């Protein structure tokens, strides 16, 4: 699996790439902490996420929703979609497939 990367694009999109394991949580949080309104998170190139990654998304979603904004999650692979289901995150995030 690939190394992890996270990119904040100009069109209010965050792209997650590679393997998002516990060692990458701080790197991801630094990016998510910068956003203040609704953003799309594109999972198309993400192969893996663990509970530490889910926590980064949860913290951000709580903060944004307090101000009427949210993260919208798109293009998840089947494995990652299943992890979101296991955690019940499909009940607290809008997950869109194209």
């Amino acid at each position: 699996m690939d190394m992890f990367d996270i990119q904040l694009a100009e069109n209010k999109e965050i792209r997650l790439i590679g393997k998002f394991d516990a060692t990458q949580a701080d790197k991801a949080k630094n990016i998510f902490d910068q956003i203040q309104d609704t953003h799309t998170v594109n999972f198309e190139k993400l192969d893996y996420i663990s509970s530490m990654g889910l926590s980064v998304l949860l913290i951000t979603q709580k903060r944004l929703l307090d101000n009427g904004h949210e993260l919208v999650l798109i293009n998840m692979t089947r494995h990652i979609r299943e992890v979101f289901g296991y955690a019940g995150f499909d009940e607290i995030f809008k997950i869109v497939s194209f």
Partner: protein
Amino acid sequence: MEKKIKKDLSSLNDMFDFIEQYADKNQLNPDIRFALNLAAEEIFTNLVKYNTQSRNDIRITLQKKSDRVILALTDFNVEKFDINQIKQYNIHQPLPERPVGKLGIPIVKKLMDKVEYEYKNRNSTITLVKYVRNGYV
């Protein structure tokens, strides 16, 4: 196959490498590989975070039987910490009430078919079993 891994988050990649080597050797399919990587990470990070009494290496073992893959992690010279006794996480809680963290063990229990805990001579062993469906690994 077994390996001892330094009890530190920075060793996570060593563990993933070990799992991938085992998966290649045994021609495990992507679903099983994903489950083994994720379950191993969740258990390992729990041991690093909560079993802080000793810094001994953690032993990871993987074995395949006809209908299952068995992953076990042993933490040496620690207090008992039975992951099957942890209060259940409510995955249906609304967002404001959701605690941050505590998701690892519930995910492992969904991913794997069996989660067993053994405490013997001050050593904790967590054994995770994944059944192979239709004989296809």
